[in-house]
Structure formats: C-alpha cells, structure tokens
C-alpha cells in the first residue's frame, strides 16, 4: 500500500492498491511517522499504482497537506491514473498540490536535486 523514500527535504510516498476506509488509519499513521522521522518539508504522492481511492483516503491526503503546508512545505501529485484524477478533481484536492508526470519532475520543481 505504501513505499516511502526521502530525498533531501522531500518525502516521496508511493501509494498502491485500493485506498479506502480499510487502509486510511494505517496510511495516516505511516505518513505521519515518516514525516516525523525524516523531518521532510515537502511531500510527493506518487499515485501511479493506485487502483481505487475514495473520500476516506482523500481525507488523509488533505490532513497531510495541512501538516506540510503549516510547516511552509509543499505537496505534489505524480502520475495519477484517470480514475484517481477524477476524484482528486471532484474533491478539489488538485488545488492543494501541483501535478507532475513523474517523480523527477516533481522533485526538480520542489527545488530538489535528484539523488
């Protein structure tokens, strides 16, 4: 469901599978733990492998955005499949982060060197 990597000031979270109520609490806890441990300012969400997402996990994403933004960090979305784009658009969440085709572009834009 979640693979994490930190590059400089940015935490890259690669999400996968069906993101619904069943995984929401775990997703929240693991993202918060990674943000705590790495002290990363920015959060890149790679959504390429996400097959389903509903409002329970969109809520988790908005919650992490608030945390990152409160710390003067930025959030970015990478490679959202059509279905996931649809719910990001419907929810207005695309407004809270820029969208990039791949992680490299997202990291470059967030002022990071690719490690």
């Amino acid at each position, binding site marked *: 469901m979640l693979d994490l990597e930190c590059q400089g000031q940015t935490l890259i979270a690669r999400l996968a599978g069906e993101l619904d*109520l069943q995984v929401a609490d775990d997703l929240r806890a693991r993202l918060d733990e990674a943000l705590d441990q790495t002290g990363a300012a920015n959060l890149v969400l790679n959504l390429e492998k996400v097959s*389903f997402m*509903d409002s329970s996990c*969109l809520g988790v994403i*908005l919650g992490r955005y608030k945390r990152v933004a409160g710390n003067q960090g930025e959030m970015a979305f990478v490679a959202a499949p059509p279905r996931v784009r649809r719910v990001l658009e419907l929810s207005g969440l695309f407004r809270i982060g820029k969208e990039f085709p791949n992680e490299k572009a997202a990291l470059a834009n967030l002022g990071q060197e690719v490690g």
Partner: protein
Amino acid sequence: MDYHNFLRLEFYSLPVNVGLARVAVAAFAAQLNYTVSELDDIKGAVSEAVSNAIIHGYEGAPDRLVKVVAMIRVDELEIIVEDSGKGIQNVEEVLQPGFTTAGERLGLGFSFIRSFMDTTDVQSAPGRGTRVIMTKRAGPREEHADAN
C-alpha cells in the same frame, strides 16, 4: 424479455468489508452494459455509502450489520445501502458539500455519490438508521449480451 436480477448482501460493519461490497456490487453491475468508467463510479458510490454506515451509522462498532441490496430492472441498477445505526437528524444539512461530523473527513461522500449516480435519495431516522437509495441507468443491452 425483460431482464431482472436481485442481490442482497449483509455483512459486519468492518472496514475490510468495504472492498468486499465494492467487488460484489461491481460484479453484479457488470451484467449491464456499463463502461469501465461507469463501473468505477458504481464502486465509488458503494464505497462511500458503506463507509458512512460503518463510521457514522455504527460509529466504528465492528459487529453490526450493513445491508446492501442491488437490483437490475431491464437497463437500470438500483443500489440500497442501509444501516440501523444512529441515523441523521437533518438530512438536508449533511448533504451540503463539506459538512462532516467526523475528524479529518472531507464531508464529500454524498457529493461523490451524487456525481457518480443518476439519482440519490437519503432516508434517515435518528436512532433508527439510514438508507441511501441510488440508481444508475446503463446503455442499451447488446444483442449478444447473454451469449457470452
């Protein structure tokens, strides 16, 4: 010959069953002539309504029953998601986008359902439970739909 089909599901109010309800209703709905994107809409609507029953209706209690009925009448699917949980005081109010009573939720579940389905009706009685009734029409059946 008009095609009719009926499916009832009842399951414990556990988060793991949200995915189960999605899979079962989507497999049922696939008998109609929906596009992949329309089937995704149906999965999305089921996911929102069943999650609401578990989180809001039963407030996380794991062993209450969520009921889902799916009916096919010719080329229309009706889905009913029902709980006998705490119910809703003011249905008009909770239907407003952004209205939520639970932490870190978006208050967009009902907005999603309304985008995904053709019609949505929410019936609720405080202390008695909530019933969400949704319909979605499919494209006309293909000639060979039953021939495999």
